[in-house]
């Protein structure tokens, strides 16, 4: 009796040209989608952009000594949602005021510096939520040294809504691209299964079970899908890293290049590659089934 034929990479053995074409196309797609995925992961949609611009200002009472104000700033900085908290003394506040409104030096003439000191608080991009901002603002309001907290409560919910919308829109577009990939991959798999139908029939006639062929094709599709997605995401990550180094202003929107190597980013890329493997295998099985049932 003949030995059991190896059906691994059967499509590659029978139709190299089409497999190479599709592989190149999929790799380029994964490069693009990997770049988009990592950008989305790092930026958190519009969170980093907003977090970079959103500031809570705690205006201090006039008589607060600098040492106490700095101690308060350190305590605020220790709150979980807070990225940074820095104290500006009345003199620094006055200079900032003059930079913003030049020509108003006369205001200081009569009663000295009219500007109070303040603490500028920035929130971490992943904690830019209504609850976390409320937590920080209410913590500050309960402190006797603080006269007033400016947290933009009137417009902040609108900002969050816009952020959520941008977040959903970004992931929606990402999902649409993945769905498009699945659709195209399924069509490619079906076309290849139709083109190789005579070969599969030949093998089936010679004792190779059709189910085994379908499963091994799907397994090969999963392995190649995983490797292509991993390689494409790595290449996309490299391109993103280079972009962030070349154009530093992008860091304010996307994030620092070092974040690409965080364990959670790598874990997300691996998860994405596993998802791509699953989609590739499903496309292979569905393409095979459609080709076998003769649907066009």
């Amino acid at each position, binding site marked *: *009796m003949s*030995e059991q*034929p*190896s059906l691994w990479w059967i499509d590659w053995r*029978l139709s190299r040209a089409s497999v190479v074409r599709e592989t190149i196309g999929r790799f380029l797609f994964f490069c693009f989608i990997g770049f988009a995925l990592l950008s989305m992961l790092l930026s958190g949609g519009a969170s980093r952009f907003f977090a970079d611009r959103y500031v809570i200002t705690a205006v201090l009472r006039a008589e607060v000594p600098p040492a106490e104000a700095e101690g308060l700033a350190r305590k605020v900085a220790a709150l979980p949602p807070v990225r940074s908290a820095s104290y500006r003394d009345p003199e620094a506040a006055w200079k900032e005021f003059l930079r913003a409104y030049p020509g108003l030096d006369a205001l200081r003439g009569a009663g000295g510096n009219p500007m109070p000191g303040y603490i500028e608080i920035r929130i971490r991009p992943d904690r830019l939520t209504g609850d976390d901002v409320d937590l920080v603002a209410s913590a500050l309001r309960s402190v006797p040294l603080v006269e007033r907290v400016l947290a933009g409560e009137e417009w902040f919910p609108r900002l969050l809504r816009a952020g959520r919308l941008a977040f959903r829109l970004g992931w929606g577009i990402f999902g649409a691209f993945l769905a498009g990939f699945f659709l195209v991959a399924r069509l490619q798999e079906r076309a290849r299964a139709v083109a190789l139908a005579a070969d599969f029939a030949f*093998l089936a006639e*010679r*004792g190779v079970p059709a189910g085994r062929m379908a499963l091994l094709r799907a397994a090969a599709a999963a392995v190649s899908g995983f490797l292509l997605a991993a390689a494409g995401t790595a290449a996309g990550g490299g391109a993103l890293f280079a972009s962030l180094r070349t154009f530093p202003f992008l860091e304010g929107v996307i994030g620092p290049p070092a974040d690409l190597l965080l364990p959670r980013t790598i874990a997300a890329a691996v998860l994405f590659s596993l998802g791509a493997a699953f989609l590739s295998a499903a496309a292979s099985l569905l393409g095979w089934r459609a080709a076998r049932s003769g649907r066009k």
Partner: protein
Amino acid sequence: MIEGFRLGVFSRGATLWDGLDFAFGDAAAWFVAGPPSSGKTLLLSILRGERRPDAGDVLVTGNSLYRGNAAHARAWRASCGHVPEQTISGARLTVGDLFRRSALAGGGVRESERKDRADRLLEMVGLPGASGWRIAELSISERVRACLAAELLRGPKVLFCDGVVAGAGIPCREMLWGLFRALAREGNTVVLAERTIPERWALAAGDGAPVGPFRVYRLPVPGEG
């Protein structure tokens, strides 16, 4: 040993044949002659385990192909070679593709070995250097010989040929006569289905045994007593 017991086929609303017994011994070349539409192709399909007979059973080395273990039937099909009467005519397919496909079914044939063996087999069937030729551009005779050579690549223990002698044409008969007998001498079994047996073959094989609409001949193998 391939044995068919009380085989029957019902086709097109009628009984094509029923109650036929066959016994094809190992290491021999068998010739089944039958008139057109007598069910020769069907008989080969049944013997290969491709089509369950409507009556009777087929035993291979004592195991039923249709009522026994499915793995045994698959292994049997894997050990068979088959040259169909209707050869493939895929527009883009080349002779080399036939060998690639056959090697895949055989498993474990290295690319360099495949090419080497393919060249030798093609030369043997009178198609030297035909690897790159398109099937669609070949004559019927060339297609049949190319398919036969591709099947031989795997070295099947049992070879079923449907209309190969007629398809290959008179000039190739001597080559086929020698080839089939040589295969049998090496321990393989060859089952040929044709409308008529060439006169010289019939003279050498003697009177065939009548089985239903068929006449079954055993071709003499060189070196047999």
